[in-house]
């Protein structure tokens, strides 16, 4: 339990938002925290994509998975003190925006055809 007490006292130590130059290095176990959060978020997005039947929500869940990968990229970039991770997240954002535009145009098209957003309406497509 001493560990818990120490943990809480360290947590309240305040936050240093290093805006200038390279911030201090990050410990490997701190990196683990971010990676586990990102993995859980990815799994939640995957479960949502598999279970939801509303086409729009299914695409929202893919955005959730993009977001999870973004957190992992930024955290790893921060660990290696390298900005390429952040540069890559900019491309994740670009792809997400392009995907949203195309997917939503397709969803509107499908909705006009069947008057429903249910993915099961299109289950005959699976051959």
């Amino acid at each position, binding site marked *: 339990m001493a560990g818990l007490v120490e943990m809480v006292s360290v*947590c309240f130590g305040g936050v240093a938002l290093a805006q200038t130059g390279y911030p201090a290095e990050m410990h490997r176990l*701190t990196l683990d*925290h971010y990676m586990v959060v990102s993995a859980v978020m*990815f799994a939640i997005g995957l*479960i949502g994509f598999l279970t939801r*039947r509303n086409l729009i929500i299914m695409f929202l869940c893919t955005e959730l998975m993009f977001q999870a990968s973004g957190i992992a990229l930024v955290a790893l970039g921060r660990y290696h003190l390298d900005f390429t991770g952040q540069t890559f997240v900019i491309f994740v954002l670009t792809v997400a925006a392009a995907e*949203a535009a195309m997917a939503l145009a397709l969803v509107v*098209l499908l909705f006009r055809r069947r008057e429903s957003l249910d*993915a099961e309406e299109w289950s005959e497509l699976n051959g």
Partner: protein
Amino acid sequence: MGLLTHPYVLYALLALLGVGIALALPRKGRGYQTLGVLLAATVGGLVMVWLGVRATAGRAPLPNLYFYIFSLIALGGALRVITHARPVYAALYFVMTILASAGLFLILSAEFMAFALIIVYAGAILITYLFVIMLATQSPSESDTDVLMAYDTQAREPLAATVAGFVLLGVLSSLILRGTGELAPPPVNPPGQDALADMPRKVENALRQARLMTEGERLADEAQLGDVAIDGRKGLIHVQGVDGKVRTIERKDWPGDLQVKNVELLGFNLLRDHPGSIEIAGVILLMAMLGAVVLSRKQVQMDEDAKARHAERLAAPGRNS
């Protein structure tokens, strides 16, 4: 402590989290949803505590409190995105997730990405989603849950999907716990301040504003000097007067704002180290725009079924009156 930080504790917690999420998914019966959300939230908190205890046992500095707050908000929002029966609310919970991850980015000192995330995701993409949700909803939703569509209130194969998701999560987390142990340690001497040499105008302006450089002076001529005029690593700046005499300003005399900002380093990384990628991003966006225009211009012929259903729905209020 050794037993408490064993990876199997994490896997057991993740399995419990899976049970919570499986219960929280919308079904016909309803009733276990609240229980599932509570269980998932509690176990999510326990996973965080487990990580914290493990870090403390490993003598590592913990991430600060804001990490725990933001990540719990982000994961809670994500959980509600996949469990909420109303699409509009799901989209709003997604905005919450985005804002919390922007907070995480701030803690990771990625300020530019944090604000770009808010602007691009919460500002642009989510508004598009909300528009489409409102365009493509059949009945105006009332506070009564009965008007909800069946495809929103009943999940498809909740159990199988949760098992699949958590098998993936188990593999991912075990690989993460093993993989981060084998990472190369972070560089001891990060090349951050070197970038100052690429920004002579910024250096000159900062020095002039701090009155460290007079009117006639300029940065030293590198060919004449035989050295770089700005040495960020050693903390030396050489300036040259009108008479050609070289003077050196040391780091202790520099004005406080003469440092390389994270945003500037990101800019160098993006535009100098990966110049072609911007072009590719532009092409992707252009093609997406063209595709969206072409797709949504197309007139759709409704098939017979849909036409009949549509006519029926339009006729329904008339019949009642």
